[in-house]
């Protein structure tokens, strides 16, 4: 009897692993990146999938093996995303597996048409990790994969690290979905792709990708893109909505009583948003805080950084406030509530929100009042006084 019970337990243990629907690893194609573009004909979408080739990964990292491409791209066009993926699958010898995806890139034209179908598809699939980074590419998304992965093994890894490093935004699918369901706006990195002839090995130009700014979305449509300086300010003001902006640097100049310039590296940067309800409607106060380390300092009168620290701080605060204010004005013109100020009204003033909810986008574009202030302090001056 005891043996029977033991046997039953072991049998149950083995079967609980759910091997009814297993697929072996070497029968799967892992999708590392999805690149979605608008198709040539209106109303179609072109989906490209980037997948690693494990048997070539090793040879591409050996000396002299830079020519071997260790990843594989396939694109198909169809009237919607699911059909395009079905078309891709039917030409592959293995099953597609999306659970290890690293990055999603939208082409600019597709982003302007609307990404809601894509977001809905990502939301509904259980295997899809909602923490995947999203970004927008200028022109066609699939051309971004031509970038040469110098430091990493695959281009998808490079793109993912752009967001992971948090030099600008680190928008994930979950951030987009959260903003969409609350009818707010969101921003994501706007890539740049170009040729860099200095890096070529054999005289062939090498493609190089980077971030050129931010792409602002409202109601799943790309409204406007911002330049790098304004995007960085916006990312700072957005606080945790942009991930956690890492180590921004600012250079300021002065020319009263002698001229000079200084560069400050922000070791910590936070932003807090407060909303106050007045008779005219809600007023939002964005407060930026930061601790600064001076990395460069030059003064024509030979003064030391300690002496001019208050001027440096003053100029820095003015520069950052101006950048953030300009960025916020740009979001207002685009009608994209990137800082999700509407949610502040919803959380703190439910009665007021009932009045404004229906026309929030319009209210944000024309009537919203935002005041930006900053308070910085110097944490250290580097190795020189």
């Amino acid at each position, binding site marked *: 009897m005891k043996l029977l*019970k033991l046997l*039953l*337990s072991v049998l*149950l243990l083995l*079967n*609980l692993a*759910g091997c*009814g*629907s297993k697929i072996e690893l070497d029968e799967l194609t892992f999708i590392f990146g999805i690149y979605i573009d608008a198709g040539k004909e209106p109303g179609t979408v072109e989906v490209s999938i980037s997948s690693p080739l494990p048997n070539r990964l090793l040879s591409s990292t050996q000396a002299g093996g830079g020519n071997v491409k260790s990843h594989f791209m396939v694109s198909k066009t169809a009237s919607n995303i699911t059909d395009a993926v079905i078309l891709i699958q039917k030409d592959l010898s293995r099953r597609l597996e999306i659970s290890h995806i*690293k990055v999603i890139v939208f082409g600019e034209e597709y982003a302007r048409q609307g990404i809601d179908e894509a977001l809905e598809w990502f*939301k509904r699939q*259980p*295997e899809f*990790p*909602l*923490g*995947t980074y999203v970004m927008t590419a200028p022109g066609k998304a699939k051309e971004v994969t031509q970038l040469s992965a110098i430091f990493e093994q695959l281009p998808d890894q490079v793109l*993912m690290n752009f967001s*992971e490093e948090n030099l600008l935004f680190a928008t*994930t*699918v*979950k951030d987009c*979905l*959260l903003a969409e*369901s*609350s009818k707010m706006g969101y921003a994501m990195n706007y890539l740049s792709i170009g040729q860099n002839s200095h890096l070529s090995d054999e005289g062939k130009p090498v493609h190089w990708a980077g971030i050129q700014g931010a792409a602002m979305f409202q109601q799943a449509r790309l409204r406007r893109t911002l330049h790098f300086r304004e995007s960085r300010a916006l990312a700072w003001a957005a606080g*945790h909505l942009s991930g956690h902006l890492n180590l921004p640097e600012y250079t300021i100049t002065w020319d009263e009583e002698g001229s000079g310039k200084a560069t400050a590296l922000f070791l910590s940067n936070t932003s807090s*948003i407060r909303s106050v309800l007045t008779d005219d409607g809600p007023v939002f106060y964005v407060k930026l805080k930061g601790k600064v380390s001076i990395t460069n300092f030059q003064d024509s009168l030979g003064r030391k950084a300690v002496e001019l620290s208050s001027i440096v701080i003053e100029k820095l605060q003015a520069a950052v406030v101006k950048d953030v204010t300009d960025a916020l004005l740009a979001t207002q013109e685009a009608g994209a509530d990137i800082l999700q100020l509407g*949610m*502040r009204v*919803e*959380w*703190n*003033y*439910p009665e007021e929100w009932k009045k404004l909810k229906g026309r929030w986008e319009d209210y944000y574009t024309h009537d919203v009042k935002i005041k930006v202030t900053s308070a910085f302090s110097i944490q250290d001056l580097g190795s020189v006084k």
Partner: protein
Amino acid sequence: MHTTKWQLFRFSLIYFSSQTTIFLIPILVETSGYQGWIALVGGGFLSLCILFFTIQVGRLKPDQGWIDFGKEIVGTWLHRLMVLLLLCWCIYYASFDIENFVLFFGSNYTRGTPPIFIQIIIGLVIMYTATLGITTIIYMADGIFLIFFMASLLSVYMFIPYADLSMLPAFLHYHDPGIALKDSISVTSWFADWLVFLFLAPELRMGSKMLKILAVSSISILLIVLTGWIMTMLNFGPHLGKELQYPFLEMIRSSSHHNILGNLDPLLIGIWSASMFIHAAFLIYIACKCALHLSKQKGKRLMIPLLTICSTIIAYLYSRNIVMYYSNFNSDLIIGFWLFIECIPVYYFIAAFTRSKIGRAVK
């Protein structure tokens, strides 16, 4: 059997948190939005009231199980009817457990596996666990408690970095009494099945300390579910939260890319599954006791397999018609039925009280 009082605390914590942590929170986010915590506190308070009545009924005869002395309070036939209803409820609840598990596990981890396969395996596990008896089940809950507690702490740790703390004022600003009342009642149906503890006697005596221990456990469960609800709201908000079926899972999966934390969800789900098995096995054990009482102790060996097969069949029928399952699971009729069953100790208490007043006290 020497079970200590705090073992009972641990058992009740595992028993109640198994269903509520995963399945109550998404429902609450959808119906209550920002004021879900009011419904939780209200439901917790009402469940404490029912706990009080249950303990009072249990203390009428501490050495006998309720199922045996119940007929002395309300009469043989009424008691038989109550036991029959309780039996149906236990089987139905166990089938909900099985189907919830199949949907949860099947849609996330074992897609493509036919549901009947998972249902049969789960049914066999529950059958085996239920035959082991109440003492073993309590010891199992004891063992899993520490792991469960650490896993809960780990999941709170994973939720916190992405939580939007500026949402907290919203919890105070939304307080619609109509929604709060309705949702308090439906939350009570999740928290208040204390009458299953009447089946612990005679193995576990109903003493005066039991009320204190179970009240502490009720408050602890309330705190656990409240924490889970707060974390879900702060991470997903009410608008996205009500669209997601399993926000807990999405949170863990989306937390990080490279390290093991982002892939830790199967481990946490495994620990949760253990608590779910304990919950279902205990229900089948109770159902078995009810059935044996009704059949006058005949068919002891067959009863547990038979009851588990009933639950599995109901789960299988639901898995063939998922839409009906979803509409049934959240329907007011089910909440009403659950509350009716959970208030059984209240009826018995009223009956015993009336009898003692009339003069025909329970000896």
